[in-house]
Each structure stands twice: as C-alpha cells, then as structure tokens.
C-alpha cells in the first residue's frame, strides 16, 4: 500500500470516503467548500503518521481550501525538544505544505478565515471546530476524523449523511442544567456532561441564555467534542424531546475527575487556542499587574500578528505572559511531567488531555479567578 504512484493517494482517499459513506449510510458524495484537517502534531500521529503523510503527499494535492490543526511547537521559538521530535514534526509540516494546504496551525479556523454562507457543507476534523461551526455558524459538517477530512480535502467531496442533512440537525434529547451558569468553565463542564450523556448527532442545550458569547460557545463546543461523539448543539426545543437534567452533583463529579491538583506551577491558556476577544479580556484582567506564575498562552500565528498590531501582545507580555503560536495546550510536548507536576487552566478539554495524555496534574479554574489569584499589582 501507499507506494506513492500517481493516483494511489486518490485511491486511498476514496477508500476512506467509501468506508465512512457506508458507516453513515450515505447514498452519494457532495461537493464541499472547505476542509479542516487534524493529525498535524507528531505527538498525536507518531512515526506511522509521518510516513503515511510523506507518501500520501507525493501524489496528492488539495482540491479545495484546506486549513490544518496545530502542531507540537512554535516554529519561531527555540524550544527544548529532542532533535527527533523537531525533525518528525517538520516532516509533517512539509507534507501538508506539499499537499497545498494553508499551514494555519490552528484549531479555531472559524475565528480566522472568512466563513462560507450558512448552509454550506464543509469537512471539519478537530472536534471543537466541527461542533462550533455546526452550532454557531450554521455550517454543515460531520465530526470528521483527521483521515476523512484529508480524503475530502483532495477529492473536494464528502459523503452526504448525518449532520450534512437537515433531518439530523435537531435534538432528540435536551440537557438542562438546574443551576445558574456563570463562567466559561461552567459551560465547559456542562459540555463535558452533555457529550458523555447524549450519543446522538445533535444535542439540545438549554442553559437559559438567549445568545451564547463566543468564549462560552467555544468552551461548550470543545468539551462536547472531548467527552463524546456528538457534532452539534442547538437551543431549539421540540415538544417530544426528552429532557436530561444536569445537577450540581453531576458537575461536581466531573470536576473531581478532571481537577486533579489544588494548585499548579504553570498557567496554560488555549485549548482551543485563544481568539482576539479572549486576548482582549486577558489583557484587561492583568492590566497594571504582574503574573506570579509562568503563564503560556497558545494562539494561532494569524491571531498573534493581529493582536500585536492592537497592542495586546505587549500588554500581556508586560505582565509576564508568554506566547506560543502554531501549537496548543492539548498534546503539546512542551508540558510534561518531567517539567511540571501540575498546571492551572480554565479549559475542560485541556484538563482531560493534560491528565490522560501528558500525565500532568490539573487545577481547573475560570479565567477571572486564575487572574485574580495569580496576578498582583506591581
């Protein structure tokens, strides 16, 4: 398999689309406008992924706009990583460049690129992006895998099934918290509960708010993506819906599972990577203060350069914040047990992967509380 002969990659792509088409009972493929691919970080795809992409990219080129997920480190910063990691990571980046993707290294493409009109079919791997785009932007995508989105990027097509079809975009079950939600962390915990509790394509979320702001919607989307397989949430309530109540006790149980440390040596922000509105908020929260702990902020390079022009980078760095572009808290090789016993974050998704994959203890708090406790006036 995968000898790199002409047409071989296309054959592999159609094999993948055929399998997921069978699984989701699609009758045909339809054209899509945008693919967003995961499987970029060497920590996640390993040596077999490196070799696969090297072969695959020899004979394949993307047919539509294609953006890609974060990799393992910031390409403009010297980081203390093994030569093997750096070389393998750069091989992956080269393969995606060869394929003709926009090497965006972001998990929030929806905050960076122009959004096709509502109702457009796309193919998004990266679960937070799929859930956010379906639920908030009205784009149509299934919860694609790194490989299925790759297959769609070079064919320009995706099986017409599940969340691409209107009939699957309505919730049969609605999750209703019986307590007041305040912070982005509350929304993250609710999303984690909902994603685990409901196995349909689409979940109803009735959290009382008329319109979720982007920060809360991101936290909710990322957590739904982490704990389950659901690809969309909706506020709409039908008459025949089953209601699942989410009580304080349920949320405390989840928090106890993810919150494995009382404090941390490092604050890590950005899973998903921070957008401009979050950087504005962070800058305001630490204005005139100095961070008392190391704080790494993960954001996309495109966001970083906009934030630079807006003076946000200077303000945050002045308070002691450190930026990392091209990468994300999740699965980063920069945060390991060897360097940190535990870290502080406001992200439920980050907490899950830091605990499970990076094997680092996690102290979960919302952003305002973190900045209140970990930043002092000069």
């Amino acid at each position, binding site marked *: 398999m995968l000898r790199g002969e002409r047409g071989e990659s296309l054959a592999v792509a159609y094999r993948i689309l055929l399998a997921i088409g*069978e699984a989701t009972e699609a009758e045909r493929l339809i054209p899509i406008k945008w693919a967003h691919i995961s499987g970029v970080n060497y920590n*996640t795809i390993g040596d077999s992924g490196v070799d696969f992409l090297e072969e695959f990219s020899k004979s394949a080129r993307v047919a539509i706009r294609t953006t890609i997920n974060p990799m393992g480190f910031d390409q403009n910063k010297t980081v203390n990583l093994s030569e093997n990691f750096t070389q393998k990571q750069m091989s992956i980046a080269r393969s995606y460049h060869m394929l003709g993707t926009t090497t965006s290294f972001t998990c929030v493409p929806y905050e960076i690129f122009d959004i096709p009109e509502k109702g457009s079919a796309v193919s998004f*791997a990266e679960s937070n992006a799929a859930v956010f785009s379906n639920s908030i932007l009205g784009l149509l995508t*299934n919860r*694609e*895998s*790194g*490989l299925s989105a790759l297959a769609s990027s070079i064919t320009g097509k995706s099986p017409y099934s599940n969340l691409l079809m209107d009939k699957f975009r309505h919730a049969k079950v609605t999750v209703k918290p019986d307590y007041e939600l305040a912070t982005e962390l509350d929304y993250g915990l609710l999303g984690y509960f909902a994603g685990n509790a409901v196995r349909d394509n689409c979940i109803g979320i009735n959290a009382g708010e008329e319109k979720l702001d982007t920060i809360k919607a991101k936290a909710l989307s990322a957590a739904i993506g982490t*704990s389950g397989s659901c690809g969309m949430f909706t506020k709409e309530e039908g008459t025949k819906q089953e209601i699942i109540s989410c009580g304080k006790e349920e949320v405390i149980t989840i928090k106890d*599972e993810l919150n494995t440390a009382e404090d941390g040596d490092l604050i890590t922000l950005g899973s998903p990577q921070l957008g401009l509105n979050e950087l504005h908020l962070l800058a305001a929260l630490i204005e005139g203060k100095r961070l008392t702990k190391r704080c790494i902020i993960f954001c996309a390079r495109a966001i970083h350069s906009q934030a630079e022009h807006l003076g946000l980078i200077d303000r945050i760095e002045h308070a002691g914040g450190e930026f990392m572009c091209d990468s994300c808290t999740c699965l980063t090789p920069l945060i390991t047990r060897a360097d940190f016993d535990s870290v502080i974050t406001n992200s439920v998704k980050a907490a899950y992967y830091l605990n499970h994959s990076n094997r680092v203890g996690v102290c979960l708090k919302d952003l305002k509380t973190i900045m209140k406790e970990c930043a002092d006036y000069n």
Partner: protein
Amino acid sequence: MNTCFKCRKIVGGYGIGNALLTEERINFLSMIDTEKGIIEDPHHQLSGSSVKGAVLVFPGAIGSSVGAYVIYSLKVNGAAPAAIISTNKADITTASGCAISNIPLVDTLETGSFFAMRSGMEVKVDADSKIVCVTNRTF
C-alpha cells in the same frame, strides 16, 4: 460449536481472534498505548487489556478526531485488533482508521448476537461475506 450472525460490512476482510467486549466507548488518542495496544485509561472497563490480535467489540470512538491515525499506528506497530465489531453504527473515526489499515470492520449485527458473545470467546469476522461467527466453548 459455531453460532453465526449476519452483519453489515463497513471495511472488508477477514479476521479471527478472541473477543474483547466493552459497553464503554474509546478515545483512541488518550486511552491506548500504540506500541502494545494496551488500554491504559484506569477508568475504562478494559483498563489493562490489549486490543492486539483481538476482535474488539465496542460501541464506538469518542473524542479526538486523530483517533483514526492511532488505529493506523496500532496496525503498523503490529498491535491492532484482528477485526472490529461496532455495537452501534460504526463511527467515522473507526471507519476511516480501519479503511487505511485494512482492519475488517462490521456493525449492525443481528439481534441476539451480543448475548452469545463473551470476552475471550473466539470470534471470526468475515466482513466480505457479512458474517460473524462465535465459537461457543461451553457446548
């Protein structure tokens, strides 16, 4: 004695191994060691078990979209399941991972088939013939 059940083919091929059953879904990225195929998550029902050479019978993948690459890594490392049976409709992560790894994948088994299966029983998955057979050692 063999008991056979009809199923739906998602990825073709033939695989035989001991059944490894779970009602819990799997986040391939965070739960499996790709070198040995061992499920490392201490909270998972299959914690400590290896998928290597087994017929994995599970409800589907959750979480990371990179799970498909993890399935491929298992295959390249010789630690992949011999076949996978999805007790729900097969999901996109599992289907795409199996497709490039040539791991037979079936779902939608006939009613009653899961009552006949226990972990450790020998299971043959003939995806191309759309048949799953269980060797029932108690007979």
